[in-house]
């Protein structure tokens, strides 16, 4: 088993959740790395869409923004941003939306807007961007984030995007027909919502991770599935693909001025 970091494990576990048939709406950071590792390993035909309007893109390095030039150069087509949000996202064409979170609760509700009160924020975060509609228009939502008690909280300060509300059939009650968050991949574990309560439940822990570590880094009382599996460690190919991608990215984004 090769050495790997928890973040690498998180990215690779997320990559594995994607298939050739998926059409993914990709955010920046971890989701982008995961989607491109999938594309470069087991899912060469996965369709990656960035909200800048680039459809079916295949960048050689990870973009720094969701609108880097390479996304357009390698895309099947690049459409306007209104079209992206109307025809492709709202039109129900996206199977998987990837979201990150500053704060997350056990029902997959996400806050990336403010810490503290909205009108007098302690910290003004970037806000939702595409997230409010990604969360409800994609057929499913996958969430990736590193675990911390600051991030995984009992109660989020602001509902940037809706997951399962207070659980159960809260989505249906709002008339939302998509599945919402069906997968949470952290640096320690893989979580899935309980079929009835919709509370995220640990179904797999990454190699060497203990239940105590998962609980210590999570702000709510963690539920574990009856049979918690061990996440298969990264393969040599997965790890090499991710590291090569990151090395290419590092080199490209160092900026030509410094070069």
């Amino acid at each position, binding site marked *: 088993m090769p050495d790997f970091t928890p973040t690498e494990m998180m990215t690779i576990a997320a990559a594995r959740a994607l298939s050739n048939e998926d059409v993914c709406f990709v955010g920046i950071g971890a989701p982008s790395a995961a989607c491109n590792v999938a594309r470069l390993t087991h899912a060469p035909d996965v369709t990656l869409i960035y909200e800048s309007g680039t459809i079916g893109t295949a960048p050689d390095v990870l973009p720094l923004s969701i609108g880097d030039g390479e996304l357009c150069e390698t895309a099947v087509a690049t459409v306007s941003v209104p079209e992206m949000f109307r025809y492709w996202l709202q039109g129900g064409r996206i199977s998987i939306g990837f979201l990150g979170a500053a704060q997350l609760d056990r029902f997959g509700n996400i806050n990336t807007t403010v810490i503290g009160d909205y009108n007098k924020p302690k910290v*003004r975060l970037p806000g939702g961007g595409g997230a409010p509609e990604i969360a409800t228009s994609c057929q499913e939502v996958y969430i990736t984030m590193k675990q911390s008690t600051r991030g995984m909280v009992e109660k989020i300060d602001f509902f940037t995007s*809706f997951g399962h509300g207070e659980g159960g059939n809260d989505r249906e009650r709002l008339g939302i027909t998509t599945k919402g968050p069906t997968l949470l991949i952290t640096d320690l574990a893989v979580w899935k919502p309980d079929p009835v309560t919709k509370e995220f439940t640990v179904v797999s822990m990454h190699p060497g991770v203990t239940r105590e570590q998962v609980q210590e880094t999570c702000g709510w009382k963690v539920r574990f599935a009856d049979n918690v599996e061990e996440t298969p460690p990264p393969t040599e190919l997965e790890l090499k693909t991710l590291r090569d991608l990151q090395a290419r990215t590092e080199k490209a984004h160092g900026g030509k001025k410094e070069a």
Partner: protein
Amino acid sequence: MAKFQSLKEAVAENLRDGDTVAFEGFTHLIPHAAAHEVIRQGRKDLTLIRMTPDIIYDQMIGMGLAKKVIFSYAGNPGVGLLRRMRDAIENGWPRAIETVEHSHAAMANAYEAGAAGLPCAVFRGYRGAGLKEVNPAIKSVTCPFTGEELAAVPAHRPDVTFIHAQKANRRGDVLVEGIIGVQKEAVLAAKRAIVTVEEIVDDFEGLHPNLCVLPHWTITSIVHVPGGAHPSYTHGYYDRDNAAYLEWDKISADRDLFTQWMKDNVLAVGSEAFAARVKGM
């Protein structure tokens, strides 16, 4: 009908204190040179519309030009937070600003509705989202056929829109290529539109018929500013200066450092400085 003029003239003639103004470009083609000219001319009390305020509005907000910002993602893309915008919101420095916050979908639809001459945009959005509770500009309409409640937001109708584009021809038609964002919509939604371009060519002979071309009669003013998007990029001309985006995180972290940087790089120079900034990019 498009006038060809200097950036100084174009800004002086078209943008007034108190105007509502959009500077668009979705990561690509952000009209930085135009924003710097506005800062130099010291416009006040602007209402700034932009999906992703980005460095461009961080600078304008930090220089105290804005009284209100209408936006959907206030981050430094791939880097982190917008520190000048945060300072204005959290601490009122250099002045307090009002914020009207939307989702990307709402902002894109609001530009689309503005271009389409409609008073509001109707879309499926904000379901379960907290912005509905804090932004009174988010309302709803009911589909008269299915009874579904759909989100409605006011159309964007800026007094002035600024964009940066690859090319204009001598008639004043403008070509935008690559990640075209909401630029066409932002121009068509506006009362006046100012376009900075990398290049002015004789004609567009041989261009594919389905590209994003804005006819000259939709544009107020065209200005030749090579490099005018830096540190954003212009597809076909120069790449994004990612290092500058990373550097901005440091500059903007400190009020004095920011102020000095703006003096040196914006107030003390003209728009002709942009060409040098993209050399070799």
